[in-house]
C-alpha cells in the first residue's frame, strides 16, 4: 500500500469513527447506512470496472438476489439471517461463476449489453414470480440477528455497515497492490499483452466478477434486513445504472473515488427533493455536466488538479 493509500485509509477511519457524533437523528443515520452499503457495492464494482476494465450494467440484479434470498429464507423457511445471507451470497457466487465465462468473453458495448440483459432478466423474474417474491409489491423482511444479537438501534446498524465498508476498502487496496492487482492492470491495458506475459486473463476477470457480485449480494441482504422490506426495483436496470454511475462519477480505478461517488449519489437525491418537479431534470443535468467536465471522475480529477497546483512548473 502506498503512503497516499495508507493516509486515505486513515482518513476514512477517522471520518467513519467521527460520523456518529455528528449525525443527530435517525434519518441522518439511515442515509449514512445507505451510503456505507452503496459504497461497499461500488468498491467491489470498481475493481471490476475500473481496474479490470470490464463494465457491468447488471449488478443490481445480484444485489436484489441477495436481498430476496435473505427475505425468502428467513420469512418462509425460518432460516437464521446469517445463514440466509451466506446462502444468498453462495447462490450468487455460483450464478456469477456460471455466467462469467461466456459473458466476459464480450468486450465494450457487447459486454454492457450482456450484463444489462442478465440484470433485466433477473428483475423481470423477481416481478413475475409472485408466489415466491411477492411480485412488484415486494415482500417484508424479518429483522437481522447474529447469534441472538439483534441490531435495532441506528448506531448498531451503522457500526455493521461502516465496518463492512472499511474492511472492503482495506482488502481492495491490498488486492490492488498484490500480484493479482498488477495482473488486472495489465489485462486492462491489453488483454493480448497480458496473456503473452502469462496472465490467465479469463480466470482473473472471472474472479473479480464473482467477488463483486458476492459483495453486492451481501449488501443486498443487509439492505433488505435494515429496511425491513424489499421490492424488485432494487434489482431494476435503473439501480444498476446508479451503481455504475457512482463508480464512474467518483472515479474509475480509484477505491476512494468509489466511496466518494457512492456518498454523493446517495445524498444527492435527498438534497434534490427541494427541487420537487425539477428533481430529475437537475439530476440528469448535473450527471451530464460532471461527466463532460471530469470524464475521469471526481477523485482522480481533483487529485490531478492538486498535483498540478502543488508540483506545477
Amino acid at each position: 500500500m502506498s503512503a497516499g493509500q495508507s493516509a486515505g485509509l486513515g482518513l476514512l477511519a477517522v471520518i467513519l469513527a467521527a460520523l456518529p457524533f455528528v449525525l443527530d437523528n435517525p434519518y441522518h443515520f439511515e442515509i449514512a447506512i445507505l451510503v456505507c452499503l452503496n459504497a461497499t457495492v461500488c468498491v467491489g464494482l470498481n475493481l471490476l470496472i475500473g481496474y479490470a476494465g470490464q463494465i457491468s450494467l447488471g449488478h443490481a440484479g445480484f444485489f436484489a438476489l441477495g436481498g430476496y434470498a435473505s427475505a425468502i429464507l428467513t420469512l418462509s423457511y425460518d432460516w437464521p439471517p446469517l445463514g440466509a445471507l451466506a446462502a444468498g451470497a453462495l447462490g450468487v457466487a455460483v450464478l456469477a461463476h456460471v455466467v462469467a465465462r461466456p459473458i466476459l468473453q464480450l468486450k465494450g458495448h457487447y459486454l454492457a449489453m450482456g450484463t444489462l440483459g442478465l440484470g433485466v432478466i433477473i428483475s423481470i423474474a423477481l416481478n413475475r414470480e409472485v408466489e415466491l417474491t411477492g411480485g412488484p409489491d415486494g415482500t417484508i423482511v424479518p429483522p437481522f440477528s447474529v447469534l441472538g444479537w439483534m441490531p435495532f438501534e441506528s448506531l448498531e446498524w451503522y457500526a455493521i455497515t461502516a465496518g463492512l465498508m472499511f474492511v472492503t476498502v482495506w482488502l481492495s487496496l491490498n488486492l490492488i497492490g498484490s500480484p493479482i492487482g498488477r495482473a488486472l492492470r495489465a489485462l486492462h491495458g491489453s488483454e493480448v499483452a497480458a496473456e503473452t506475459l502469462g496472465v490467465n486473463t479469463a480466470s482473473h476477470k472471472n474472479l473479480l466478477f464473482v467477488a463483486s457480485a458476492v459483495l453486492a449480494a451481501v449488501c443486498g441482504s443487509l439492505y433488505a434486513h435494515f429496511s425491513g422490506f424489499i421490492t424488485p426495483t432494487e434489482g431494476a436496470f435503473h439501480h444498476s445504472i446508479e451503481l455504475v454511475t457512482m463508480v464512474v462519477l467518483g472515479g474509475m480505478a480509484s477505491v476512494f473515488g468509489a466511496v466518494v461517488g457512492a456518498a454523493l449519489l446517495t445524498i444527492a437525491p435527498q438534497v434534490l427533493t427541494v427541487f420537487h418537479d425539477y428533481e430529475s431534470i437537475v439530476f440528469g443535468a448535473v450527471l451530464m455536466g460532471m461527466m463532460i467536465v471530469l470524464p475521469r471522475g471526481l477523485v482522480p480529477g481533483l487529485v490531478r488538479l492538486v498535483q498540478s497546483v502543488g508540483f506545477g512548473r
Partner: protein
Amino acid sequence: MTAALLQYLISGVTIGAIYALVGLGFSIIYNASKVINFAQGEFVMIGGMAAVFLVADGLPMVAALPLAVLLAVLVGIGLERVAIAPARGASVVTLIIITIGASILLRGTAQLVWDRNFHTLPGIGGGMPIEVLGATILPQAVLVICATMAIVAALFWFFKATRTGQAMLATSYDPTAALLVGIDTRRVLTLAFALAGGLGAIAGILITPIGMTYAGVGVMLGLKGFSAAMVGGLGSPMGAIAGGLVVGIAEALTAGYLSSAYKDAVAFVIILLVLVTRPSGLFGRRDGISL
C-alpha cells in the same frame, strides 16, 4: 391453430418494425461516433408525446406529426452539440453515463412540460380490424409495417446514392481516412443524431395508437431497440432490421404460446444467446472495443 400462429406473427412483425426503427437509430449513431445512445428511447417518447399534445392543442395531424418529428430531430442535434461533442475521447462508460444523464433529463422535462399520464392517438381506419385468413390486423399495424419498409428503403437509397450518405458510410468505416479525403466528420456526427432523433420520433408516433405513450415509454422500447441492434450486430443497418423482427416475432410467439408474463424478458434472453454464441451479433463486424 394456423390462424393463431398468423395472428402472433402479425403482431410480432408490427412491434418488430418499431424495434427495428429504434435499433436503426442506435446503429446510425454508433457508426458515426462509436457511442451507444441510451437516450434513443426518449426520442420515441418525444415523438409520441409531442404528437399527442400538439393534436390536443388543436393542430391538424398533417401539421402536428411533422412538428413532433422535427422536435425530436432538434433534441437529437442539441444532445450531440451539448453533450457528445464536448466529451469526445471519453471512455465508453463515461459516454454511456452521459447519454443516461440525458435520458433522465429528457424524461423529467417531458413529465414537467407534458404530464405523467398515458395517452393515445387515433389510428388510421378508425381502429376497425381487417380479417386476413382467420387472423385480424389493425389498419394502424399495416401502416406501421408499410411506413417502416418505406423508411428503410429511403435510408438505403440515402446511404447508397447521396454524397452525404456516402460520407456517413465512409466515416463509419474509418473516421481519420474520411477526414483526410475532406469529409466534415463533425457534421456527419450531428447528422447521425438528427437522423436517429427523427427515426425514433417516427417510431413513437406510429406505435402510439396501438401501444399508448407516456413519459417513461422510452425506457423499455429503447432497451429492446438496443437488443435489436445488438442481435443483428452493432453498426449494421440491415442487422438492426433483422434483429428487430427476430425480437418482435419471438416476443409475440412467447406471449402467445409460453407465458405472457415473461414476454419482456425474451429480447434479453435472445441477446444473451446470440452474444454467447456469436459475440459480434448475427451480421456484425468483429471490432469489439475495450473500455
